[in-house]
C-alpha cells in the first residue's frame, strides 16, 4: 500500500492545502528531538472544515493507507472538537509521521460522517465518541454503546463540560439514600 514517493511533513501539508485551499483552517508542524543523536519525531496538526472532513480522509487514503490510532475529543464550550490521530510511514525506520486531523462541530448540530467504511478499525473509537461526547456519526454500522453502562441516561455525556455532563452523578455522592 505504500507509494514509492517519499512523504515529507511539508509535502503532506501542501498536498492538503492544494486540494482543499481555504477549507484547511490551520496547519502546524511540530518537531521534537530526542536521545543523544537528536533524531526528530514529527507531529502534524491540521484543522479542517466539517464540510470536507470525509474528503480529507479519502485523500489521505490515496496518499497512503494510514494507521488510525484513536480519535480524541474536546468540549470547547460552543463547539465539540474531534481529533483523529493517524500514523503515516510506519514501516520505515525513524520515518513515522503523526498526523492529527481535527474538526470542529457546532453543539447545535454535532453530526459528522463515519469513516469506518474507509477504515474499518475506526468503529470502536467512533462509537466511543458518540457515547462520550454526544456527537452523531452518520452512517455508522453499529451505534451501540461501548464503555458507558446502560443505566446512565442517554442524554448524559461523560466528557461534556456543560449541563449535559456527568456533574449530577457525582455531586451528592456523600448523601445516603433513605
Amino acid at each position, binding site marked *: 500500500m505504500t507509494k514509492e514517493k517519499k512523504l515529507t511533513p511539508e509535502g503532506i501539508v501542501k498536498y492538503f492545502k492544494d486540494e482543499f485551499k481555504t477549507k484547511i483552517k490551520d496547519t502546524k508542524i511540530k518537531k521534537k528531538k*530526542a*536521545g543523544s*543523536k537528536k533524531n526528530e519525531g514529527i507531529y502534524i496538526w491540521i484543522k479542517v472544515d466539517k464540510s470536507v472532513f470525509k474528503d480529507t480522509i479519502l485523500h489521505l487514503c490515496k496518499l497512503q493507507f494510514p494507521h488510525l*490510532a*484513536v480519535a*480524541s*475529543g474536546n468540549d470547547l464550550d460552543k463547539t465539540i472538537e474531534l481529533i483523529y490521530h493517524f500514523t503515516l510511514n510506519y514501516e520505515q525506520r525513524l*520515518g513515522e509521521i503523526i498526523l492529527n486531523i481535527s474538526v470542529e462541530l457546532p453543539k447545535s448540530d454535532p453530526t459528522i460522517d463515519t469513516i469506518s467504511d474507509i477504515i474499518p*478499525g475506526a*468503529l470502536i473509537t467512533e462509537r466511543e465518541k458518540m457515547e462520550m461526547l454526544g456527537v452523531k456519526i452518520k452512517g455508522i454500522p453499529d451505534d451501540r454503546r461501548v464503555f458507558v453502562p446502560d443505566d446512565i441516561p442517554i442524554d448524559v455525556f461523560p466528557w461534556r463540560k456543560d449541563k449535559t455532563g456527568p456533574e449530577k452523578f457525582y455531586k451528592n455522592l456523600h448523601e445516603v439514600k433513605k
Partner: protein
Amino acid sequence: MKQKTTTKTTYHIPIGPIHPALKEPVYFEFELDGEKIINVDVKLGHVHRGVEWAGMKRNPIQILYLAERICGICSYCHPAAFTLAVENAADIQVPERAEYLRVIQGELERICSHLLWAGVAAHEIGFDTVLYLTWQIRERALDLTEYLTGNRVTKAIMMIGGVRRDITKDMIPRVKRDMLYFKDNFEKLRHVFLDDKTVKMRSQGAGILTKEDAIKLCAVGPTTRASGVKKDVRVGESYFAYGDLDFNFITPDILTGKINGDVYDRIIQRLLEVKQAIELIEQCIDEMPSGDIVAEPKIPKLLNQLKKVNGEGVGRHEAPRGEVIHYVKFDGQSESPYTWKVRAPTYNNILPWIPMLKGEQIADIPIVAASTDPCMSCTNRVAIVKEGKRYELSKEELHRLSIEKTRRLMK
C-alpha cells in the same frame, strides 16, 4: 442475554464478562454451528472506571500515579505515554541519561509482560509445567525491577522531564548478570515453545489474522507484527533513546521464513521480542551517557511551569501489547489538563478478534483470545444457551475442553 433469531442449525454462546482466557472482564457472544464459530460479537466496558475524567480533576504529577494504575502489567507504559504527551505540549527537553534509563525500564517491563503471557498461553493449552518454568524466569525480572525501582509492579519511576531513580555504577553488574540469565533461559524457552510438536499442533493455523485485516482494523503491537505489518513505535519514531539504538523491526519470518499470522507466529513474535529487549537493555547499559536524570527536580516549579502551558500534545510508547497513545490538552488557566485521552493497545486489538475467531472451534477460544494478550481487567464463568436451554460451563470445564483437544491431538 438476548436471544437473536437464527436458523435452526446455529446457536449462541455468550462468554464472559467473566472469562477464563482473559484475566479481565469482556463479553463475547458466539454464534456457533456445532463446534464451529460462525460469528462473534464483543462487548466492552465492564471495568470502565472513568480514569480520564478523574485525571481532569488532578494535576499532571498526580496523574502520573493515576496513569500507573490504569493497568497492572503496563504500569510503566501509561505514565510514559502521558509524560511524552505533556513534554510535547510543554516543550520540555529531557536529559540524555534519562532517555536511556527510560528505555531500560520500558524493555524490562516488556520482558516481564511477554514472559507472563508465555506462561498464560501454555496454561491455556494445558501445559502447566511450562507455566511454572516461564514464571520462574519472570520472577528474576521482577526482582530486578524491584532492585532498580524499589517496587515490583507499580514502579513510580516516571517523572515529567526525566526519571526518579538512577542506575548507578554499582548496580550495573547485577543488571548484566540477570541479562545473561535471561539469555540462557531464552534458549530453553525457545526450544519448549517452538520445537514442541503439541504446541505446534494447537497453534499452527489457529486464529489467523491476515495482513490486510491487520492493516484495515488498525491492529497494534505483536498482534499486527505477527501478521507481517511492520508497525513498531520504537523503530518508527524517535522518542526516548530508541532513535540512537541499533535495532530494527521484528516479524516472525526472521525465524521461519514466512508469515502465517496464526497463534504460532504470535508466540514466535513475542519470544523474539524478549530477545530484542535483552539486547536493547545491554546496548543502553553500554552506551548510556552520564548527566542529570531529570530536567526540573523541583516539583512545585515544574507544576508552575505546566500551569502556564496552553497547547496540546500526543505521546506514544510501544507497550508490550502495542502502541499506547495519550492525548493531553492544557488551557493555560487550570492546573489540571483540559482533556486527557488514554488509548491502551487492546482497544485496537478488539476488532481483529472477529476475523481470528471466525471458523475456529470452541476449544480454541481460550488460546486464540489469549494470543493477542488482551488486557482489560478477571474471571470464571461461561454460560451456554443451546436451543433455548441455558446451561453453564465453568471456567474449569472450558479449560478442560482445551486440554482435551491437546490430548486428542497428541494421540
